[in-house]
């Protein structure tokens, strides 16, 4: 194996700056997509457990549709197909005039995709609170809205912190798919460093270390949060 090691490359400009930029875009993309995924996913999760048949149907259809098409294909649908289906002006705006078209598309695509996964977690969280609590709340005269607001959701969200953490980390990892439509996030930056310097080992190692460190830090932080807010009496609470 012939290879010229040069770890110093990672700490030299412009490559150090590239890595920092890449991490910045990866984190920004992940956080923005998470806002979409979490809010829409929560609404869908509530819909899937509600008493209305239509709402349940909409929720289920959404989940099946978004879960059974690969994220990369969805990304291409939003980036290449969606603008064509719009009226000319709107299509042009989405394709070019919108601020940072590739990044915005990636945020929406990854957010909507992950919403289907968050929905399933929220649904299982609400189910885990149990029909007993739901019936008890109804029996004391709460409306369905109040049942969710005061009884089901506060408990459900505390129960599903661990799976929600891994969904967030899934977004963090999936954000690398954005490079296929030209967003220069962390993975794309390391690829670029490899192409400029032929130091693939060092570049990919840098990305590997950064991804791992962020992932383990998030897991560590969330474990503390989880312990703070755990619902007494659940098996997951130790």
């Amino acid at each position, binding site marked *: *194996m012939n290879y010229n090691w040069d770890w110093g490359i990672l700490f030299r400009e412009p490559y150090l700056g590239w890595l920092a930029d890449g991490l910045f875009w990866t984190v920004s993309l992940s956080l923005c997509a998470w806002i979409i995924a979490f809010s829409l996913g929560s609404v869908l999760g509530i819909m899937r457990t509600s008493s209305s048949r239509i709402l349940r149907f909409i929720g289920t259809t959404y989940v099946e549709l978004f879960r*059974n098409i690969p994220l990369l*294909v969805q990304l291409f*649908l939003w980036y290449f197909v969606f603008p064509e289906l719009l009226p000319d002006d709107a299509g042009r705006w989405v394709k070019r005039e919108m601020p940072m078209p590739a990044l915005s598309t990636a945020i929406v695509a990854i957010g909507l995709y992950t919403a289907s996964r968050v929905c399933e977690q929220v649904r299982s969280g609400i189910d885990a609170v149990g029909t007993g609590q739901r019936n008890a709340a109804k029996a004391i005269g709460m409306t369905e809205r109040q049942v969710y607001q005061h009884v089901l959701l506060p408990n459900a969200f505390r129960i599903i912190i661990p799976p929600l953490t891994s969904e967030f980390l899934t977004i963090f990892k999936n954000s*690398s798919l954005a490079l296929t439509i030209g967003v220069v996030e962390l993975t794309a930056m390391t690829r670029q460093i490899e192409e400029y310097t032929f130091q693939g080992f060092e570049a990919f190692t840098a990305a590997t270390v950064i991804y791992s460190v962020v992932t383990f830090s998030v897991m560590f932080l969330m474990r503390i949060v989880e312990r703070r807010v755990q619902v007494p009496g659940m098996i997951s609470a130790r």
Partner: protein
Amino acid sequence: MGDFDYSVIFNNIPFLVDGLKVTFLLTILAVIGGMVLGTILALIRIAQIPIASWLAAAYVNFFRSLPLILVIFWLYFLVPLFLGRPVGSFYSVLIAFVLFEAAYYSEIIRAGISSVRSGQIAAGRAIGLTYPQTMRYIVLPQAFRSMVPVLLTQAIVLFQDTSLVYVVGLKDFLVSAELIANRDQRLVEMFVFVAIVYFVFCFAGSLYARHLQKKLAT
């Protein structure tokens, strides 16, 4: 949508089928490889061998913290470097998938093994089987039976993940469709078609997984 041109799809069916074959071949080989390596990792972790179990756990957590695309890039870069000659992207991608998916399969299989009651191991040992024999003939058969639906679901995820070979240009279903789309300037038709095909396979698979789950529950 008025000028949706179906002919671009029908005229290129053989080419698309070739791509689909690559997608399926990659999925099947990666599922087999991932499950074999995943089972080994799970067994090492459960056996609680001092350093080995820790290494297996570290392997699983490490790979689960990385994006699949990065692992694909790593192997695409490393495999030719190690062999000293260029190999087709198929092999480096396959190795990437096996290494990556093994981490996820290992967690599923570990959960499956843990769901077998510990009395079973004690019983196996009591009738004179060695620990490996107990695992091989008593624990694993029961564990795998209960895991089938989850393993199938993971295979569907893997089937979707194979689309990421796009980043190294391996001609799977998506890349084949994209080549035609760009050549004929028919992006809308091709990408919608690709989405429908993936959806049909994955939806059918997930319905079957749910059916198996129900059958197991009763």
